[in-house]
């Protein structure tokens, strides 16, 4: 009996405690929400206001995945290329108009024997980061390394046309006949037949020279991969440190042959997702951002405060659905055409306004002979798609689903967009998500992948880089085919073989225009879109503009330091857009 009053006294206390806790929690939550740090709406820092380029400072940029290697002989992905561009130089380079210019070479080569022989003279005072002068022998040795079978570089196919290169590659010859060192400063390349893309190949990172003594020592001590971890090049920046998977640090090379780079150091952060990179950029912790995440991209596009510090330009890439022409049902051109007709590419433009242009042909818009008027089958037309399905003998669609290989989240999303369209002509698509490595290995084998989300980014600005590599029957191999749709067309092969050595530019472009039309018509790829790339940089970052060939070109950057912090309230006073 004594316990009863105690319980009755405690009950209101408990209720009050509970209510108080709840109210307290709600207030706390409200306070947190109200005071939640907002992302800055404009740049957090501005420059000091210098007009002329200044030296000094650290330039920080980031990428979404791992840097594969710093050995240019293996740099065949965008990140490795971006890093190698800072560490190395080649004989040739491109300017901001996409024209070829000499780099380590003193001038563009003398071409003789109807485009078969190229003679280069090296510049004076070009040095490796270890201080040794670069000679013609270094150029020769590096290309020998690149083309040796022992090394197994993916760059070999670009240099096959050098006399004796295949024999050397297979080990039948001790050296490449077609590379002749005439003296310390002069080197000559002799080709089996004229090849208009040979100079483009020489401008690729594959052909960047390495210091022989350094490479041989490393390869002997630690193996081939070590070269990619301890690079010695001749570029504007020298290697300082690489914490694998985290960041690469470079420092300015003061003995550089051209005007020195301006920043003291460059830091290339790895594995920073687009979301994180965007947040860091807006907080002022990254100096430049490339392909920000969707929400941030929209923000940056619509923000007045960022208007002067962003760029959007079409990238020299194309994305597509690759259809395996050896496998049913895509061995039938009508099914391929049906797919090309069925894709409503405008959906992508609506979903990502200003980020994608509907693709109608293999060549991206900035690359001649792109033809905006091309009478192409690669446009959305449901009736014609159904008609093609009828011609193929599948008026009611396919009975089996198509397995479409995709490489990651972004592609899964894009592919889903088109699943619906293909359902409309009775084609069910199932997505098979695989790692990038598996994707490359398996889609490069005949008769494995029926269809794949695919794409191509140019290695150099020449139509052959899109057509020869991706659709010539010579690019079909039992392993690692570059022609992943296994498309064989003797007529196309003949056109491409005539175009490649053609010296007359007009004739050459006319041939590629013909090939371009065939590919759009035969649809080994159902083209999807050309991406548009966005860059945004901090106001104190100067000297950046998108490069037509190199994706992340930061050689000419300078920093307007010391940077000044500005209050975000500055931007709020701006008139609303």
């Amino acid at each position: 009996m004594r316990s009863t009053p105690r319980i009755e006294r405690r009950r209101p206390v408990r209720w009050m405690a509970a209510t108080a806790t709840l109210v307290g929690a709600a207030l706390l939550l409200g306070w947190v929400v109200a005071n939640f740090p907002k992302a800055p709406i404009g740049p957090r820092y501005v420059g000091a206001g210098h007009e002329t380029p200044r030296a000094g400072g650290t330039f920080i940029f980031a990428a979404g995945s791992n840097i594969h290697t710093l050995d240019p002989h293996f740099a065949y992905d965008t990140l490795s290329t971006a890093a190698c561009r800072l560490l190395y130089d080649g004989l040739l380079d491109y300017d901001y108009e996409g024209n070829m210019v000499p780099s380590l070479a003193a001038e563009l080569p003398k071409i003789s024997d109807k485009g078969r022989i190229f003679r280069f003279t090296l510049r004076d005072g070009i040095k490796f980061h270890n201080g040794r002068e670069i000679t013609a022998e270094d150029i020769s040795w590096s290309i020998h390394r690149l083309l040796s079978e022992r090394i197994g570089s993916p760059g070999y196919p670009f240099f096959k046309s050098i006399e004796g290169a295949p024999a050397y590659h297979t080990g039948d010859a001790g050296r490449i006949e077609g590379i002749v060192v005439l003296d310390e400063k002069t080197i000559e390349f002799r080709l089996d037949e004229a090849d208009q893309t040979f100079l483009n190949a020489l401008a690729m990172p594959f052909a960047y020279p390495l210091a022989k003594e350094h490479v041989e020592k490393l390869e002997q001590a630690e193996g081939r991969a070590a070269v990619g971890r301890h690079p010695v090049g001749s570029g504007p920046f020298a290697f300082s440190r690489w914490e694998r998977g985290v960041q690469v640090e470079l420092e300015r090379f003061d003995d550089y042959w051209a005007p020195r780079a301006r920043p003291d150091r460059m830091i290339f952060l790895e594995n920073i997702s687009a979301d994180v990179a965007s947040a860091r950029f807006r907080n002022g912790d990254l100096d430049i951002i490339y392909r920000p995440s969707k929400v941030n991209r929209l923000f940056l596009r619509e923000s007045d405060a960022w208007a002067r510090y962003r760029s959007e330009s079409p990238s020299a890439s194309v994305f597509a659905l690759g259809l395996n022409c050896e496998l049913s049902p895509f061995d039938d051109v009508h099914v391929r055409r049906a797919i090309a007709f069925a894709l409503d590419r405008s959906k992508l433009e609506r979903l990502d306004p200003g980020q994608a242009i509907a693709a109608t042909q293999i060549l991206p818009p900035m690359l001649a002979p792109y033809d905006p008027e091309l009478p192409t089958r690669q446009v959305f037309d449901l009736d014609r798609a159904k008609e093609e399905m009828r011609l193929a003998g599948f008026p009611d669609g396919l009975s089996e689903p198509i397995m479409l290989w995709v490489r990651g989240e972004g592609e899964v999303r894009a592919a889903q967009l088109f699943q619906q369209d293909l359902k409309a002509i009775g084609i069910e698509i199932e997505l098979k998500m695989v790692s990038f490595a598996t994707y490359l290995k398996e889609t490069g084998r005949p008769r494995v992948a029926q269809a794949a989300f695919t794409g191509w980014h140019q290695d150099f600005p020449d139509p052959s880089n899109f057509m020869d590599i991706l659709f010539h029957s010579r690019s079909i191999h039992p392993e690692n085919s570059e022609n992943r749709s296994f498309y064989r067309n003797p007529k196309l092969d003949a056109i491409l073989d005539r175009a490649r050595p053609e010296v007359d530019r007009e004739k050459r472009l006319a041939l590629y225009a013909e090939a371009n039309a065939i590919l759009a018509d035969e649809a080994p790829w159902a083209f999807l879109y050309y991406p548009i790339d966005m860059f945004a940089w901090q106001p104190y970052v100067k000297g950046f503009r998108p490069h037509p060939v190199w994706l992340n070109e930061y050689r000419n950057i300078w920093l307007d330091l010391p940077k000044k912090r500005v209050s975000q309230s500055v931007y709020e006073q701006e008139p609303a857009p």
Partner: protein
Amino acid sequence: MDSRAFRRFRRNKGALGGLVLVVAVTALGLVGPWMAPYDPVEQFTEALLLHNGLPAGPGVDPAHSLGGDVLARDELSRLLSGARVSMLVAYLATALAVLIGVTLGLVSGYVGGRVDTFLMRLVDVVLSMPFLLIAIVMQRVWDAPGIWTICVVLGVLSWTTLARVTRAKTMEARELDYIQAARALGLRHFRILARHVLPNVIGPIIAIATILVARMIIAESALSFLGLGVRPPTASWGSMLNDSQSLLLGVPRLTLYPAVLISMAVFGFNLFGEGLRDAFDPKD
């Protein structure tokens, strides 16, 4: 459930609340897809995309009450049809775990000796493996992961607690007089296990299985969130979380909807399961 346990359960308000939630989300899983106003994979690029490419919110188009998702599909329809996938995976995976766990537990507890030692070490081995990591690896290795493979992966990795509890209860029951009597009468082992031991151990199994359903919902969400769950464009609550993460900052509602549903379901199963456990075994 005997009447005492039932009374204990009825007095537990939390457990009753849990039951309500469980019934609600299960019903959603059963009838959700039929209630969905649209095909969950159909895209409405005209109606459900704003000019800047972001999905339209609730009320922009009255025909789509919750607006669109990242790919301009009807959000409500995806939530409703996703309910079935999430519930199906959770229940099937749990059923598989129960099947494996109870069978091994009964055998282990009843037979004893080396069989028992072996099975319990097996439990230790499975317990020592990091659950999500192994699930991810298994999903990766599988050629074409989908709903069924998730059920198998999750089920195969989560039967251990069930096996242990069943074993302990079986060992207790084995010594009971009437089971000794049944053995003395020469009943076959299978019959003894099925008819006499199992009913004795079923209570705690149900309680643990209920809580396991909650864990399976979370596991499925986690796998789908990592992109290793159901195959797109199929919706599950977890895959919807994954879809929406790219727009987390700009369009948080797309994350909120599935997150709230997942929390509700997990909360409900946990409350219900704990209520059952208390009801069956007041001593704990």
